[in-house]
């Protein structure tokens, strides 16, 4: 073992290397690693938050879906009701219209009958006269029997 100046040289080198490491190497690497750690922690927290948000949103969506379903059901219900109502109304109208048409027809028929009766009535006298003339072979004094015929016609 021969100790010599090397021991001093090595000591100086050692101190210089440690100082360089302390000044230019260690803090930079440690800082970068700490920053990454923080970033990862933040990322994890964000992921946590996001999953919570997702859960919340899903809950919300479920609510909305349920509401929509209920609303749809109620709308359908009311629509059905309305449809029935409309049908009923239509039926009612149709029936009324039918009745009205029937009544009008009846009135017309009656009018027709009456007119026919009138015609018949007006012609009865003439017919009776013509028939009587044929039977008696002579003219009948129309004026003398007119009252009687008129009475007959009126009784028809």
């Amino acid at each position: 073992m021969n100790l010599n100046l090397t021991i001093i040289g090595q000591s100086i080198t050692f101190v210089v290397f440690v100082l360089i490491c302390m000044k230019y190497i260690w803090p930079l690497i440690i800082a970068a690693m700490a920053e990454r750690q923080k970033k990862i922690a933040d990322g994890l927290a964000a992921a946590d938050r996001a999953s919570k948000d997702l859960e919340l949103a899903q809950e919300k969506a479920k609510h909305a879906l349920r509401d929509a379903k209920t609303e749809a059901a109620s709308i359908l219900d009311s629509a059905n009701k309305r449809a029935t109502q409309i049908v009923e109304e239509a039926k009612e109208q149709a029936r009324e219209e039918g009745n009205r048409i029937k009544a009008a027809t009846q009135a017309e028929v009656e009018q027709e009958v009456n007119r026919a009766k009138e015609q018949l009535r007006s012609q009865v006298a003439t017919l009776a006269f013509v028939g009587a003339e044929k039977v008696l072979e002579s003219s009948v004094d129309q004026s003398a029997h007119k009252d009687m015929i008129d009475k007959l016609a009126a009784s028809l």
Partner: protein
Amino acid sequence: MAADGNAPTTTEYIQHHLTNWTYGKLPAGTYCDGKSVQETTGWTVAHCSEEMSAMGFNAIHLDSMLWSIGLGLIFLALFRWGAKRAHSGVPTGMLNFVEALVEFIDKTVKDAFQYRSRFVAPLALTIFVWVFLMNLMDLIPVDLIPQLAAWVSGDPHFYFKIVPTTDPNVTLGMGFTVFFLMIMFSIREKGFIGFVKELTFHPFHPPTKGVGLIFAPIIILINFALESVTLLARPISLGLRLFGNLYAGEMIFILIATMFGAGLILGLFAGVLQLGWALFHIIVITLQAFVFMVLTIVYMAMAFHNDDEDQFTH
């Protein structure tokens, strides 16, 4: 690789492998191989062990310094590269490796050192990676780079040790640097009085009143003697542990290497041994780097530890 062209004897071979490339102040009249090679005192590269011992403390191991500084620069370059590219996004490839190491060191430091310091963690990182890289040179075949250096330099006798941690100067240099840092931080944290008190009031608490007071100086002296030994033992054990492990490991690699020239059977056997020892040594070099680092952290924690009531003797 003897200068006369003959193959070196085993002893020569081993000695050659354990000798550093030394540059120092050579006193006049030093003999090498029986003949004087130095007429005047001056700085030169040593050619034999006689010259090295003649140089004494005024010498420097060029190979140790070259490799330790070179490997240190590799460490700095790698981690500076990592530090520049470090970002908060997804790390890839080499950056991952750098960050994993930094995180590992950071965790180890936080476990053993509970005080606030900007210095200790970089210190630990430097020690771990640098010592590991220096130890790693042990796994390179013992003759490869020295032979290459000899070929490049043109001197077959060229001394070139590539494992800096097998040089006690390197390990003790680091050990004593840690020691001075310890004392520095100790004084900074506790004040000079606190530091001296730590050395003299433990492990035996001196009496502070009554007739026992006359024994106080003796107890303080005993405390000081004990604590000084404990304190000084730390850097020495720190340095010598690393040196011893690596020196022994390197020695075994060299011994195995001497068997390669002794026939086919022994050569094959040596190959198996070499492989086994190298595999085992992977653990040793990592462990030694880790131990050096952890002990440094613990010593730093002791230096920062400031509790007058605590009777814990370091």
